[in-house]
């Protein structure tokens, strides 16, 4: 599927500006803490505390401490909200603080499991014949759209919500679709992002697949052994570039391309040729009308599983050669539905502050992939154009291209 350059009968696609952003992740609460963690190459993976992992192979994750998550809002109602809702509220609050005039026409957010831990609470209580008095709260606050609606409600936003659950590509798919919606001229302002909160079911699921590691997360390392999970929420406010300029909004960066592909090889494994990943990246470049050599940095999906990194590495090597690459999941874990949005903000910070985010725990390059890994430390660089990848179960692959904006 080639993306058309003449969308919706108009002469050309609209430019899409990022005018505000907010984030909460294991790297910190807010853009400033996130930037500091990235530049210092902090390892934010910690022993899991939310549930017992005694009988799991993997025992660590990137976690947002509870005291950073729960926002004192909405009184008693706020106490019933899932922590995913609180993370979304925190991220949205930061974004709206930057641009209080931003009123979205549409909200597009990615997630994989919504308020899953409430579903777990309910099932455990049911199974053990425990007290089920809280079950209506668990049930009502479990659905994936709830955290998005809660966050909107907290700030009086009433835009329609599209909640995309495309597994680990959800966040990038959400941003990509939001980008398309503004670019086509159909909407002026779209709120987008992703969220996911750590849950036992998902943690054990990846453990059962032996996709998660009992060791350090080492993306693209020759001796990588798997992923660690993470959590968080990230929000980006997108606006028609001209409209944003006209009202004097600060423009943080531009999104200039989006590519999506579906790899029908297997439910949980990418095509070993890397064709699905490559197709998404090619389509993103085509959408951005860029040649591969215009990209200065790639934030890779880089889960650190042997298979996924090999296919992504192959596709990146074929398309981009020796462009600097890192997987910031090494520092904070894989936050699934949030990952694409969190990593879009990592890219935004790289563009704004002119540095390459690091791929920590890296010891030796993979013999099969000749990649230019930003190993272990961030480094200053001229960064004008970046590409961010997210690939998920179900064969969903998504890439976005972002560009620096200079006044």
């Amino acid at each position, binding site marked *: *599927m*080639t*993306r*058309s350059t*003449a*969308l*919706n009968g108009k002469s050309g696609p609209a430019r899409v500006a990022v005018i505000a952003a907010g984030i909460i992740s294991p790297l910190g609460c807010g853009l400033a803490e996130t930037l500091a963690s990235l530049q210092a190459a902090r390892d934010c993976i910690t022993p899991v505390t939310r549930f017992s992992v005694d*009988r*799991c192979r993997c025992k660590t994750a990137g976690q947002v401490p509870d005291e950073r998550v729960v926002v004192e809002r909405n009184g008693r109602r706020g106490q019933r909200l899932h922590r995913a809702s609180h993370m979304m509220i925190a991220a949205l609050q930061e974004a709206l603080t930057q641009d209080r005039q931003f009123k979205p026409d549409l909200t597009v957010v990615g*997630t*994989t499991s*919504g308020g899953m831990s409430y579903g777990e609470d309910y*099932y455990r209580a*049911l*199974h053990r*014949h425990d007290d089920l008095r809280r*079950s*209506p709260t668990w*049930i*009502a606050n479990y*659905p*994936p*759209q*709830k955290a998005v*609606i809660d966050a*909107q*409600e907290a700030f009086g936003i*009433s*835009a*329609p*919500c*599209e*909640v*995309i*659950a*495309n*597994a680990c590509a959800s966040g990038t*798919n959400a941003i990509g679709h939001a980008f*398309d*919606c503004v670019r086509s001229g*159909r909407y002026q302002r779209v709120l987008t992002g992703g969220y996911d909160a750590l849950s*036992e079911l998902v943690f*054990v*699921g990846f453990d*059962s*697949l*032996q996709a998660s590691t009992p060791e350090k997360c080492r993306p693209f390392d020759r001796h990588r052994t798997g992923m660690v999970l993470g959590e968080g929420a990230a929000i980006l406010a997108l606006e028609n570039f001209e409209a944003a300029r006209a009202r004097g909004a600060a423009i943080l960066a531009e999104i200039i391309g989006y590519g*999506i*592909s*579906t*790899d*029908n090889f297997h*439910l*949980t494994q990418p095509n070993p040729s890397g064709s699905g990943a490559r*197709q998404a990246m090619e389509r993103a470049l085509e959408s951005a009308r860029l040649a591969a050599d215009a990209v200065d940095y790639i934030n890779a999906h880089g889960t650190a599983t042997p298979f996924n990194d090999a296919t992504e590495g192959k596709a990146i090597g074929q398309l981009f050669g020796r462009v600097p690459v890192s997987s910031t999941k090494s520092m904070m874990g894989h936050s699934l539905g949030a990952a694409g949005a969190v990593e879009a903000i990592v890219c935004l910070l790289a563009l704004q502050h002119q540095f390459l985010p690091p791929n920590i725990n890296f010891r030796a390059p993979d013999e099969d992939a000749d990649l230019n890994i930003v190993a272990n430390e961030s480094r200053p660089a001229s960064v004008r154009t970046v590409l961010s990848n997210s690939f*998920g*179960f*179900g*064969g*969903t692959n998504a890439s976005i291209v972002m560009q620096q904006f200079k006044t």
Partner: protein
Amino acid sequence: MSLSIAGMGWITPLGAGADLVWDRLRRGDEAHAEKIAGQCDGQSYTVFRVPESALASLAPHPRLRRVSLISRFAAAAGLEALANARVKLDLKIAERTALIFAISNGGVIYTRRFYRDIVESGPQAASPLLFPETVFNAPASHLAAILGITGATYTLVGDGAVGLLAMRMADEVMTNDAIDYCLVVGAEEVDWLLCDAYRRWRLLRSEAPVEPFSEIAKGMILSEGAGAILLARGGPLKIESTHACRYYRKRADAETVLKQILSELIEAENDFVIASANGTFVDQAEYRALSRLVPEALVYTVKPALGESVGAGGLWQIIVASQALRHEELPPLLHAPAKIRLQIPALRMSVRRARAAIVLSCGLNQQIAGLRLALDG
């Protein structure tokens, strides 16, 4: 919006096949109520299930070997929609076809089994075969693989309004003229755990029938199945507008939001309305909004006949609206109160003068959407 319905397919508790189910609805048939038992406390629940015979014609495919029912339902409906449109997805067309999947509860059967093993025996008992099927986009992935779709595939999650939200998203995706078709599929499977959850939420009825628009909300009956609609540019059945409205904060606010949607969608007195009344609080909100804004419009809901299938429900409603416009007839509304003040088809009723249908979906968890479907010309 300039999209048209090129093909449709559904698999429901009344069987499979666009025309077969329609004929049964017109006859006034109602799905067979079945009892299922909860595994934790022996509680029994009434559900409408898809009969096994309805899946008999689904061809085997390697992707369908170990999948849950929801994926089989989706495959059956999706393939029927393509056949109904006489569209064969070769490599070139598949590349220009998007898939948008609407889902609410998802693969709940495998998810429950997977987590039950963890609760009962610990993480080491968790099945790596089950886990991938618990992911929301697993059914969409299987369907994309069966159809050979390699471009845009999205799974949209939400409450009962998600089917209509998926139609709106399809409209957004098709602003890209590199896409010729968009297959919108909604699917759901039923399980005792879902029944328990909705019961505790006080939305479930213990016995059939579903009594729509009743003054006292007695609850809904859960059902399962899938609906699929192939959208294209051009054709006699046009999607004139989709209104993915704001969510409602409290149940008491649903009526206000429904009125906003209705006032934007209604154009002529002859339009009829396919409501989402399912025996819950939704009914009175719709009742008040409809009787206030369009007191003369004919109103029908398919949920007494097919049950509440949440993710598939919106697609079923659109298919009902399409069939009613095509056949110029509405099926009889089952189990409505005798003194209802809405215009309802107590028996099969002609809608020959209608050029358009309004579809309303009021979800149980804050989302409401509407859509206007019209015969071209």
